[in-house]
């Protein structure tokens, strides 16, 4: 019983420490630099996850696409 309590204390202390460390770390750390947005488009029936792999002609076509009104 006694041992159990000591153990729990240790756990708590560690946890607190971790939280403190982590929050300091979190404030500093940033992610996502140089990460682009993924833009999915359809090309001749297949989907492509990125415009980078479109050939020049298809890039030009994608740029020209206009929306079709519904009314």
């Amino acid at each position, binding site marked *: 019983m006694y041992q159990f309590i000591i153990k729990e204390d240790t756990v708590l202390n560690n946890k607190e420490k971790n939280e403190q460390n982590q929050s300091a770390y*979190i*404030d500093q*750390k*940033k*992610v*996502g*630099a*140089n*990460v*682009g*947005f*993924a*833009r*999915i*488009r*359809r*090309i*001749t*029936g*297949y*989907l*492509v*996850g990125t415009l*980078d*792999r*479109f*050939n*020049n*002609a*298809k890039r*030009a*076509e994608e740029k*020209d*696409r*206009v*929306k*079709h*009104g*519904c*009314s």
Partner: protein
Amino acid sequence: MLTRYENVKMTAKPIRNTQKSNSVYVNETELMDIYKKLTFTAAQDEDIKRENANIDGDTAMGTMLKYGSEGSKFFIDHYVLPENIAQAHQNGDIHIHDKDFYMLTETCCQIDLIKLFKNGFSTGHGYLREPNSIESYSALACIAIQANQNEMHGGQSVPNFDYAMADGIKKTFRQEFWKFFRIYMQIKTYLEEIEIDAIQEKFEQKIVIIRLHLFQVYKEQFEEFLYLNVTQDILRDAFCFASQKAVKATERRTYQAMEAFVHNLNTMNSRAGAQVPFSSINYGTDTSEEGRMVIRNLLLATKAGLGNGETPIFPVQIFKVKEGINFNSKDKNYDLFKLAMETSASRFFPNFSFIDAPFNKKFYKKGDFQTEVAYMGCRTRVLENVYDPKRQTICGRGNLSFTTINLPRLALKAHGDIELFFKLLDKMIYLSFHQLLHRFHIQCRKKVRNYPFLMGQGIWIDSEKLAIDDEIAKILKHGTLTIGFIGLAETLKALIGVHHGESKAAQELGLKIISYMRQKTDEAAKRTKLNFSLIATPAEGLSGRFVLMDRKQYGVIAEVTDRDYYTNSFHIPVYYPIKAYKKIQLEAPYHSLTNGGHITYIELDGDVCKNMDAFETIIRYMKESGIGYGAINHPLDRDPVCGYVGVIDNECPRCGRKEGESVSIKKLNELREIYSNVPIYN
């Protein structure tokens, strides 16, 4: 005339340039220049490495594939093709698709998994037993698609995915049912294992369908077991317990199996690692509980996306729309049609095919999936069969090869003279017929041995009737030989100054041109008893090729050669503002003419998920207008940093970052408390 190419001649020496020995050398240097480009430039800078957007040209295997492809094209041009055909391709009158595979294989095939799975199959590298659970069904479906992909140059399709997977669900349900039944009996009664075995044995083969209340069906037969000292009540409760638990467990397992199916098809490399298989699946019409379970869970898994919520690129999914099955609110699968539209609004797939379009409906027999039209990948359609009119069916058939005619070039040559245009078109059609037959006769000399999976495992129709060293000539006749076209809009512009979106007269002329082409393919089919057909070409690599050459020859002509691409097939130009309903009306008649395949796209603005009524209105209008195959495009962006999916203009509406900017982990942790799909960073 058409049988002249029965014996294909191949020479050990180049056919072309034999008089000027120097020019061969020049050509070989050209090839080496291509190899240098492939080797020393990045895909980003080199168009040739981005011919197909789903192949990564920067990887070792992607480059290896291009070496092979370019070397093969060189060989075909100089040693195989008759002079006039080689020239027509090289100067851009026609485009022979997948020319690098000219000597090797066919385009695509519609795989019948039901037939394949029966009694198991071999991939050529190992034998697989008949699958016994939905997980194995889904895994083996991927393996079959992958194995076939490695033997053909086009995409692979499963035309009856719901029917095929339903068998796996029956087996899974049966397993789950007996598992729970035994548990219940062991807890609630004092029966020995052997006595429970006896009950299971008697009913094992009968529990084949999913029912929540199985007991009513089998009530009388239980009386035989009264000697076991169990009451009817206990048996009834056991049946109720087991069937309810089994339905739930089967549903859960099916979801996981469908999730795995989609994940696998997006991640497993084929063709030496350069790409994943180009897969398509058709579904939507199986109204059995099992079939419905497949469709529902596949759609839910697609909607959920891949590991980080990414949109699955494969398989291409096609939801078959049919009145009386899923189109109207009283139809049994209407709920699934609804779910399909919701899924499509957030994930692009499924696309929608329409069995009720008159040219599809005439083949349809209720309850027979072999007669339900299926579309492959980009748009290929194989259903009619002049070679064997008794088998106008889908499974085991596909396209053998196709060749596209440069329509705008003919219009430019004709200088507005429509009569001359048709004369030139006539010539080009016959040249294409000759070329398709030339290739067909090469394909015919191949043996079953050359396709251990496609032919060796009976995927292709009737291939199971051939021996390993038999030629495949006879059975290939079930496939289609197809002529395609590009740039109808530019053609009309060049001929009469307006395209079919702009004037009635242009639409009439457009229909006249495409009807003429169809008439010619029909005549050829009748004459040769081969399945000549007409396709609205899905041009990717081709979209820019013709126009560059035509611009060089004829100069920059407004709305003909002034853009970097020719408009796809019969489409209204992508840049032309037009209402959705009008575009559908104008493009629909071309669907009935292009029996080798077609698709119509509508581009919608903004976040379609928030406007499902508009989405449904468009799909329903497509069906009413006689469209065969259609889909809706809309902007679909994703921020990989915070996991947002939707429209992103300049900054992400969820985390507020601009492209390339960073965002603090603190912010992301806050967002994670609101949204479940924010990725975790350590």
